[in-house]
């Protein structure tokens, strides 16, 4: 407690019995306050997570009871489930293109909006709108129509003479995944706002110093802006990556994992196998595999971050 009221404390502590009571009361109060979180954590996270570890070691379908099979699910997944490998490949493909595209767009626009001009606030808000709508069913429904064979995208291509025939972009084995990657890139609004906040933190003096040293605008970007922004880039990278690894709604609605499983991302496969088809044990194993994989990727990113993320305390 603060010194100001220290005297009061020492008077209280004269009575040891009262102190014990106070101690119990303090602990109880603390737990009452965190109780809502604690209930949520135990009931909806810890308990299901541990249960699923057990289920992953059982054969368990929606009609029967779980029966112990040891590592059989895992062995089957790794050795005898081509769809598992397909879904991993599709998910990595998606993440590897969608995350950098989104972050690059976010950074580019943040740099544009860095200098206040008339209507900057309006533009910033407008560019942010896709971010708040992106996860909605509405946007997925629009996207599906936009890139369907009758959709507006074909109208443009035909009108500009790029394409003679209309094709269904969401039904094409090579392009379907790209309609979803573009949708992800389209939602660059929130990383853009985070970059803008990061750019504001860079001291102006550094640019003045760089200018005196004769650095041009481009050189300033690479020697001042980019290094000082690496912590923010890193933060955005982790957040976006974790989110995109588990993309579900957009794929489920736009392509349903098709055509030919070319857009079968992991979360859709997990849902299909574990819930639609009712293989609860097998699905639990799938869930644990992606959780471990995601943890490994995150740890690796954190480890490599010492090499490229610039922390001020080290530099000065």
């Amino acid at each position, binding site marked *: 407690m603060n010194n100001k009221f220290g005297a009061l404390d020492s008077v209280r502590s004269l009575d040891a019995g009262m102190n014990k009571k106070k101690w119990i009361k303090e602990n109880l109060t603390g737990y009452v306050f*965190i109780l809502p*979180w604690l209930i949520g954590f135990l009931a909806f996270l810890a308990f299901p997570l541990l249960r699923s570890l057990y289920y992953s070691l059982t054969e368990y379908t929606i009609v029967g009871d779980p029966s112990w099979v040891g590592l059989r699910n895992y062995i089957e997944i790794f050795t005898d489930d081509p769809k598992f490998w397909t879904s991993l490949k599709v998910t990595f493909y998606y993440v590897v293109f969608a995350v950098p595209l989104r972050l690059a767009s976010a950074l580019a626009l943040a740099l544009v909006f860095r200098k206040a001009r008339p209507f900057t606030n309006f533009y910033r808000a407008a*560019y942010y709108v896709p971010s708040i709508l992106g996860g909605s069913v509405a946007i997925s429904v629009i996207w599906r129509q936009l890139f369907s064979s009758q959709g507006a995208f074909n109208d443009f291509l035909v009108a500009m003479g790029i394409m003679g025939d209309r094709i269904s972009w969401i039904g094409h084995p090579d392009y379907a995944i790209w309609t979803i990657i573009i949708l992800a890139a389209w939602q660059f609004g929130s990383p853009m706002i985070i970059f803008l906040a990061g750019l504001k933190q860079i001291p102006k003096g550094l640019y003045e110093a760089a200018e005196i040293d004769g650095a041009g605008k481009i050189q300033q970007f690479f020697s001042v802006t980019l290094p000082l922004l690496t912590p923010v880039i890193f933060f955005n990278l982790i957040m976006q990556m974790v989110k995109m690894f588990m993309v579900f709604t957009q794929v489920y609605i736009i392509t349903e994992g098709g055509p030919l499983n070319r857009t079968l991302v992991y979360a859709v496969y997990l849902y299909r196998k574990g819930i639609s088809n009712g293989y609860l044990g097998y699905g639990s194993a799938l869930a644990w595999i992606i959780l471990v994989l995601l943890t490994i990727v995150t740890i690796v990113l954190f480890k490599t971050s010492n090499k490229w993320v610039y922390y001020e305390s080290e530099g000065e």
Partner: protein
Amino acid sequence: MNLTFSQKEKIKNILFHVLVGGFCFFMLYPLLWMVAGSLKTSGNALSATLWPQAMQFSNFLEGWRGFGGVSFAVFFRNSFFIAGTATVGQIILASFSAFGFTRTRFIGQKFWFAIMIATVLVPGQILRIPQYIMFNQWGWVGSFLPVILPQMLPVPFFTFLMVQFVRGIPKELDEAAEIDGCSKFGIFFKIILPNLKPVLVTAGIFRFYWSWNDFMTPLLYLQSVTKYPVSIALKMFSDPNAITNWGAMFAMTFLSILPTIILFIFFQRYLIDGVAFSGID
């Protein structure tokens, strides 16, 4: 040609508006296309033009009728109920727990706090199957409970966000109130909660958005059409194999994002500051 400084600035500004404005139009085109589509005749709804030849307001009436004898009034009511309860519950309970983590002392505080931080990034998808089994055993499947309750109890992200905010409120305020004989609960409700307003608004809006847009949990747990939220209804309503009335589909799609857009227009400041402060997405 020699240009003065202000002339150069002017040209730069014009160039900025042409490029940024043009790209902005390109970005917002899908949304404008949807709004236009809601007013076009069904046969024409998918064309690229943004100008409907005949304003077909009847699309809204036709769409509103819904399907299976259940109108969109029911779906909207369900969505408002789900998202509203989740939002109010989340901001009160998360701030309550955040207070516990910052302003009280108890055994195991550091441990629980570390656990909370560690679970921020656990994706919900991982938990779907065991949660489904659990709710099934509890007999909750088919009710709103498994959809609302997990979104109502403090999620790590919002709790952490509020912890950050509570830390910024001077402790002297608590101490003065304590001298006046205020209990911890009194301090929370009278001192901390009113001071949390900005973060409550930010967290509240995001909670509302996420719950409003939530698709997977209602897909799993709600089985009767009369309990469907807008997100599920829209998916059913827009099934490309069954639909013929594209205008009506666009009209309902448009209505489904209207609450989001309205909240955005009114609370833009809170949203953008919230994103910048917390990295919310």
